[in-house]
C-alpha cells in the first residue's frame, strides 16, 4: 500500500461554522454607542479672584423658572414651552442700547442692551422632572444656536452648528481646523452663551 508522505490535510469545512458562531456572538453583543448630549459648563465653586461684584441690570437678565409641575415662568410671565425659544431669541437679539449692529430685534429699551450682556438665568425646583429640565435647556441652547446660525449664514454662508461640528470632529484636517477656529470663535463672541444656573429652590 502506497503511503503518501506528510500529515493529511485538516478539513477546513467547519471553519465557516466556527466563524459564524463568533460572528453571531459579536453581532448580538454589539451596541454601537452614539453618545450625544447637551454640553454645559458648571460655574466654578469659588468665584475668580479680584473680580468686583458686577452689577447686572435687571433688564439684562432673562429669568426662567421651572416649577415642580413643569410649568414655566419666563420673564415673569407664564410661558408655554413651545414659545420659550422665540422669547429667548427676542430677548437675546433685542439690542436695546443700539450698540449692536447685527441685531435684528425690536430695540426695546425694557429688554436686553446687547447680546454680549444678556444673561439667561435658569432656576428649577427640586421636584422638577429631569425631562422637562432638558427640554428647557434644549430650547435655550436652540435659541443661541438659531441666532448663531443666522450670523454664520450671513458672514460665512454656512450654518454655525455645522462649522462647530466640523471643528470638533477629530478627523478634520489641521489647516481646516485653524480656519474654522477663528470663525467659530467670532460667531461665539457675537452671541456668547451666558446661561447661568442658579441653585435649586427648595420645595415650598
Amino acid at each position, binding site marked *: 500500500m502506497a503511503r503518501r508522505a506528510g500529515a493529511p490535510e485538516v478539513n477546513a469545512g467547519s471553519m465557516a461554522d466556527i466563524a459564524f458562531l463568533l460572528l453571531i456572538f459579536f453581532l448580538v453583543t*454589539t451596541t454601537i454607542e452614539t453618545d*450625544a448630549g447637551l454640553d454645559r459648563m458648571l460655574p466654578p465653586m469659588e468665584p475668580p479672584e479680584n473680580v468686583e461684584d458686577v452689577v447686572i441690570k435687571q433688564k439684562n437678565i432673562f429669568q426662567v423658572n421651572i416649577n415642580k409641575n413643569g410649568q414655566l415662568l419666563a420673564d415673569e410671565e407664564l410661558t408655554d414651552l413651545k414659545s420659550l425659544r422665540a422669547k429667548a431669541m427676542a430677548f437675546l437679539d433685542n439690542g436695546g442700547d443700539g450698540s449692536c449692529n447685527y441685531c435684528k430685534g425690536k430695540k426695546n429699551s425694557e429688554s436686553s442692551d446687547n447680546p454680549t450682556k444678556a444673561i439667561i438665568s435658569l432656576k428649577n425646583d427640586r*421636584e422638577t422632572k429631569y425631562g422637562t429640565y432638558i427640554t428647557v435647556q434644549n430650547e435655550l441652547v436652540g435659541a443661541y444656536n438659531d441666532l448663531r446660525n443666522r450670523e454664520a449664514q450671513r458672514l460665512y454662508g454656512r450654518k454655525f452648528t455645522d462649522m462647530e461640528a466640523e471643528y470638533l470632529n*477629530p478627523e478634520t484636517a489641521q489647516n481646516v481646523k485653524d480656519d474654522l477656529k477663528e470663525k467659530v470663535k467670532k460667531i461665539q463672541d457675537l452671541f456668547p452663551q451666558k446661561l447661568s444656573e442658579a441653585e435649586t429652590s427648595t420645595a415650598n
Partner: protein
Amino acid sequence: MSKFSKKKSGELPPVSTASLPDIVFMLLFFFMTVTVMKDSSLKVENVLPNANEVKKLEKKDRVIYIYVGKPTQEFQKVFGSEPKIQLNDKFANPSEVGDYILAERAKKSQELQNVLTTALKVDKNANMGLISDIKQELRKVNALKVNYTTYEGDAFRNLQ
C-alpha cells in the same frame, strides 16, 4: 479510454464555498472592532430624555459616566424605588460623587486629566433635586464640564 471519459451531464458545477469563511471572517473582524463591551451593567432604569441641539461626545477615554435613575425591578426590594445614583457597579449617595470623580480622574493619564467630561446619564423621570446635588459635588471637585447625555429626537416628547 473509457476510464478517462468525463461525465457529461447537464448539471451545473456547485458554487464554491471555499471563500465563505473569508467573508464571514471579514464580518467578524468588523464587529469585533466596533464592539464596545459594557464595563458596568446598569442597575438603574435609564431612559434618557430627547434633545435635538446635541453635540456628539467624541473620545470615550475622556468621559466619566454617572448614571441616575430608579433602581431596576430586582433591586427595588433592597433599594426602594426612589431614583439613585450608580457609579461604576454600585449605588451611591450624592456625597460619594466627588470621591468617585477624583478616583476616576487619577486613573486617566496626565494630559487627559484637565479635559475630562462628566456624562450624566439620567433617566427622564428623575427629579432635579438629585441632579442639583450631583452638580454641587461636581463643582466642589472642579469637574465643570458636563454633558447631559440624551437621545437625539424631538425635545417635546419628554413632556409626555
